[in-house]
């Protein structure tokens, strides 16, 4: 009997067998770094209106603008450098995706585990509400909430959380319900240990694997939902464009040959979402023993 390598090392060994997943992880990390250091690497601060000149608007890739540098990906209708706008837009998308993901993870997990543990009326109340919410599209709910709360980052995150906590609640409930009947929970309760201790130290750690999987998928979903809302004009103010709004800004010019305004932010968004999903798929496969080779 030996202690052997840690769980994390084993996990990574298996993960690294899938080269595409490794590539996707690298892409995600690079995109996060680009977003983090957007201010250092962007040629322009796209949110500073004093930097923008309408003379530079809707210029094609490679145009040298009034700032004296090349707009590698062209400019948008407000005269923003698209490359800078994409870096800053990535920042907003990732921020909102992570924030909405983690808040809905905490809320949903708490509700799901409590429902599974307490049972009875609490269980019925929480889970029926969750079922009801899962039965109509998340975007509909998000639209209504943003319309009610108004525009802004916090409101947007609130709307995304309200639309997505149900997925976490459902997953946490299923996992907790399965763990609830196991001997080690009974053993802990029979000691006796307080319900708080049992939930926190035994139930929660054993429910995490499926939650991590849902979290990766839901972060990608939050990002695309945010982009959708922004595209529909319900996202952030036009002075701080996210990727969705950049796409939306360029949309009227698609047919007039000025494709780059929509296409480049769209490509960035697609790469980000696809990469997160590939990472999520690999993590899910590794947590699901039935899919093991």
């Amino acid at each position: 009997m030996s202690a052997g390598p840690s769980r994390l090392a084993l996990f990574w060994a298996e993960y690294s067998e899938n080269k595409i997943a490794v590539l996707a992880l690298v892409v995600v990390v690079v995109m996060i770094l680009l977003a983090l250091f957007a201010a250092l690497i962007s040629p322009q601060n796209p949110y500073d209106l004093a930097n923008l000149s309408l003379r530079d608007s809707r210029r094609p890739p490679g145009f040298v603008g009034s700032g004296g540098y090349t707009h590698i990906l062209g400019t948008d209708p407000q005269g923003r450098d698209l490359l800078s706008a994409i870096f800053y837009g990535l920042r907003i998308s990732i921020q909102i995706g992570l924030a909405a993901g983690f808040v809905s993870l905490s809320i949903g997990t708490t509700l799901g585990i409590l429902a599974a543990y307490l049972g009875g009326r609490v269980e019925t109340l929480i889970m029926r509400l969750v079922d009801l919410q899962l039965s109509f599209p998340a975007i509909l709910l998000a639209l209504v909430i943003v319309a009610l709360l108004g525009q802004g980052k916090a409101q947007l995150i609130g709307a995304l959380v309200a639309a997505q906590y149900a997925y976490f609640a459902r997953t946490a409930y299923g996992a907790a319900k399965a763990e609830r009947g196991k001997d080690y929970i009974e053993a802990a309760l029979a000691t006796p240990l307080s319900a708080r201790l049992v939930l926190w130290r035994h139930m929660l750690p054993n429910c995490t694997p499926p939650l991590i999987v849902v979290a990766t998928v839901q972060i990608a979903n939050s990002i695309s939902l945010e982009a959708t809302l922004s595209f529909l004009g319900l996202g952030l103010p036009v002075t701080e464009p996210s990727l969705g709004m950049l796409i939306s800004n360029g949309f009227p010019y698609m047919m007039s040959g000025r494709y780059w305004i929509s296409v480049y932010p769209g490509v960035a968004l697609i790469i980000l979402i696809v990469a997160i999903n590939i990472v999520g798929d690999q993590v899910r496969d590794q947590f699901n023993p039935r899919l093991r080779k």
Partner: protein
Amino acid sequence: MSAFLTIDNVSRLFGPKLNTGEKIAVKLGGKVETRSVRAVSDVTLSVSKGETLGLVGESGCGKSTLGRLIAGILPPSSGTVTIEGVPVMSNGKKVTTRVQTVFQDPFASLDPRMKVGETVAEGPIAHGLTTRANSKAYVAEWFERVGLDPVWVDRYPHQFSGGQRQRIAIARALAMQPDLLICDEPVASLDVSIQAQIINLFLELTKRLNLTCVFISHDLSVVQHVSDRVAVMYLGRIVELGPVAQVFGHPAHPYTAALFGSVPKLVLDADELVHFDTIAGEVPSPLSPPAGCYYHPRCPLASSGCRTAPPPTTPVSDVRSVACYHSDQQLDRAKRS
């Protein structure tokens, strides 16, 4: 001897949990199963300090449920379980640490995501038997007592074998410094070669720590080896109770006799195929047990009286009791064979 553990008229029913739809269906006269199973039915027992009581019976007879009622894992539907006069449970919650349990399957009873040392330390810290600062030494002490190397405290359950895990589970129970230990089939899921080690450890520890113990098992030879007295259960009722040697030697209840008769034995020099006696018939559905004595449909001694009223528990001697109208007849048979 004064009673240490008293089980007074304890019953436990398991009813179906009806959802709202089913409740409406019942009101409208629909056919929904609403009957309850009486897993444990009017059990009265007492165990004295330092004694080991064996609890035997077929699967589904309610022995594990009775163990859970004593351990404070399940609240009884009626009746009380007390240790030296203090109830184990109050308002559906366990209110004592004096009784601890060792579960059947050590692969399921240890949290797979918690270091085994933490699993053992958790209860004693929560109940002030040790402090967080001293818990390392405290756990190491219990690891040594159950024959585990204290350097293993930082490992996870999956890094141990079945026997080692059961030792960890025993350490977890004993670290709570209980007076009463419930062992629910503690060796049933272990390899035969490991069973003996765990049983010896168990005997040594109960003796050294002067533990009272309820040992649940369907393995009669294990029960015979570890117990002072034995209680035989059938469909939630205790049918026979007495010192191990007497009950095993001369069963006073036909069910006990049949249970022992069905144990495969090694017969040397057998010229013909050895036939093992099996108990005739099936265990009746606990949803609708037969009237009278639950055993009468399978009993060779059953008479009309057995079909009408359940036999009361009557003393056979000052240490033995049995719930059977024909125990004299059964004892005669046992002495003749």
